[in-house]
């Protein structure tokens, strides 16, 4: 298993290298110019030219790329064109809040999603099943910014239970993580339900019941354990999506995360920050996928790593 993990980590190197090439190229293919964007509509040519020089954008693109990768290998993500701050510091400062928010949402999503899915599958076509599946449909389809604002209006403006926006205490974390978790709860719930229903039809479940195992143990030990592999896959994918897809939640709740940093940097054409942020998120993705693959073995010992 360790050998497998090491091999996977080595394979991540070309993947991330591909990411650098893609993001470097894509961000430069966007129309627009960082110097002009920073200088603004009221700038003179002289200002824009000076700025372009300061930013090192007067060099040929391939030289810029070689320099970027060279710095990257040495662990240097470069400097923001807009603020001149080291990109590594800026990305690190924004990655932690996003990680915090994503983990909180993931926990909520797993707890509520799996629970709702399991109960719905155990008692299919019951009132609980219908209610939770309709709620899941709503959770899936409600736009994040709308949901966020509604929660904010209810729990901050009307009831005054939680602060409306910003980051700091645990109370600040609740509304954004619920908002971000909503679609994942829904997805995991529906997915768990259908996988469980399928597993519950298997003969070994009938055998377990015939042996007189109590229904709760049939569901939890015999069915859920076997349904977990696809659920773990979905959860892993969701985690990646939460990490990179929190930008709307971050904007509504003024959460200083990496999604907002990325969008702001794209709008400002701040190439080094976009590159740095994408590489960090891509790296996180690779790790999460590896983690999920390793979890398979724990969830189901029949899986072997070769």
């Amino acid at each position, binding site marked *: 298993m360790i050998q497998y993990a090491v091999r996977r980590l080595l394979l991540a190197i070309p993947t991330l290298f591909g990411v650098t090439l893609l993001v470097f190229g894509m961000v430069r293919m966007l*129309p*627009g110019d960082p110097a002009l*964007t920073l200088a603004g509509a009221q700038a003179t040519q002289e200002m824009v030219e000076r700025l372009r020089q*300061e930013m090192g954008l007067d060099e040929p693109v391939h030289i810029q790329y070689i320099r970027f990768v060279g710095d990257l290998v040495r662990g240097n993500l470069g400097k923001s064109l807009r603020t001149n701050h080291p990109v590594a510091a800026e990305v690190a400062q*924004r990655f932690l809040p996003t990680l915090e928010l994503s983990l909180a949402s993931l926990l909520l999503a797993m707890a509520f999603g799996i629970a709702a899915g399991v109960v719905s599958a155990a008692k299919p076509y019951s009132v609980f099943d219908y209610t939770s599946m309709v709620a899941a449909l709503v959770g899936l389809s409600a736009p994040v910014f709308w949901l966020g604002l509604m929660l904010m209006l209810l729990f*901050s403006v009307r009831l005054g239970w939680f602060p409306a926006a910003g980051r700091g205490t645990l109370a600040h974390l609740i509304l954004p993580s619920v908002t971000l978790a909503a679609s994942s709860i829904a997805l995991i719930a529906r997915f768990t339900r259908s996988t469980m229903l399928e597993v519950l039809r298997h003969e070994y479940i009938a055998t377990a019941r015939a042996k007189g195992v109590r229904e709760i143990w049939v569901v939890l030990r015999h069915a859920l354990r076997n349904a977990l592999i696809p659920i773990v896959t979905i959860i892993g994918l969701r985690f990646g999506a939460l990490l990179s897809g929190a930008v709307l939640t971050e904007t509504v709740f*003024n959460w200083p995360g990496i999604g907002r940093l990325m969008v702001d940097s794209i*709008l400002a*054409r701040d190439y080094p920050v976009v590159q740095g942020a994408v590489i960090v998120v891509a790296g996180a993705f690779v790790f999460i996928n590896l983690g999920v693959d390793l979890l398979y073995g724990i969830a189901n010992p029949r899986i072997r790593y070769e």
Partner: protein
Amino acid sequence: MARKVLVAVVSLVFLGIAGLGQTPKLGGEMVIAFGTDPEALDPNRITSAPAGMVLTHIAETLILMDEQLKLQPLLATSWTVSEDGKTVVLNLRKGVKFHDGTPFDAAAVKANLDRFRTATFAFLLYPRVQTVDAVDEYTVRLNLDMPFAPLLSHLSHNFVAMLSPKQLAALPAGQFVMDPVGTGPFKFDKWVRGEYVRVVKNADYWGDKPYLDSVVFRIVPSDATRLVLLETGEVHAIMRVPPMDAPRVAKVRGVEVVNLPGVRTIYIGFNVTKYPFTDVRVRQAFNYAVDKEAIVKEILGGAGGASNAPIMPLIFGYTPQEPYKYDPEKARLLLKDAGIPKGYKVTFHHPTGRYVMDAAICEAIQAYLRDVGIELELVTMEWAAYLAFMNKPVAESTHLMYMLGWGTVTLDADYGLFSLLHSSQWVPVGSARSYYKNDTVDALLEAARTIADPGARKDLYARAMSLIWKDAPWLFLHYEGQINAQRTMAKGLVHHPREYILAHKAWIDR
């Protein structure tokens, strides 16, 4: 007249919320929320109003432009401009120290001004100052290569604030100041990027000491979230309330909406080198075809005003022109005269989310022009792409009609007209994206830069603007108003036309 009225309105706004007659309470932290993180806090690098607003609490300028747009002494106590307009002598305030204890003197001013001259963004000072002499400990002399009348208002701009020479000397090459050390009533404390900037009271301030212990500038990009934070009382004041939300916010208990004029003019430019805008009748017809008053009233919720000059009324040099009154019939006749067939198609490029209600306004213009037989094809562009598209030299330009705004932050007509309408300023050199050229206008704008007498300058601008108005290189739209909102407990906040909320003399009524 209009200027007086507006200034009166502005003053009323300030008096109304200043809480005069009450005794200010000491202490506390005031929180002000706005939409974008400052790009830096270095006068050499900043271009945005939020950055200027934070910086002005920490670092001071030589000359102050107060909220009634009058020049007042600040770090300079008095100044004289020589007869030929080529020398400006500033007498400096004595006994002022930077936050790091460095004395403020002529050497400090010279260090700062010399730095601006080599800076990327010191466009405000840049044009004419050639050298700066420290005459004695508290006197500096600026030597210009030719007279530049707007210089004093330029020196009042927050982008030319004075920083400690000790800090500047210690700054590594290629770096910008992120933790400014100035002489202001507040000292820089902390900047968490994307979250907030915090400043704390400077107990050794040379002037009236601030009442507040600290001020936090919170960065909250979402309009809706800023409103909620104000309603819950988590912040004391917010900038840029969307026009459609203003009436509702005004009804929230403990909250008041503050309307004030801005200094940004919004216009639709025509590329006058391309058919059909080579014909002045077409340009005038477009001006007659659009009901600007209705746009301000219905789309902007009454914040701002319809343009009756290329600059807005608060700017020095403003003279109102005879408005192009909404008259679709006249527009149709002019278009017919110009031989424009019915249903003629024109492409119209515009940004979205940049100016207040920009896309909605462009759609309204589309409807107005359809009414006079012109089919506008709207092309909505993301800001950075739009800027690059719009910054082409005339030979490569492909735009016909475009929307842009211009903030005359120096509050002097020179900055509001020269870069936009003088023929030496066609992009990419300056910001003239209509490629307009009128030799008389050029001569008038040049002359108005170099004579010192305000009355004579105003005359020159009046003549230039009347020609520009008739030539109509733009569809003159409106100037933006600002809608801010604040808790009533926040007293003494100043809402400044430069798009600032200032807490220098603010206090919290708990």
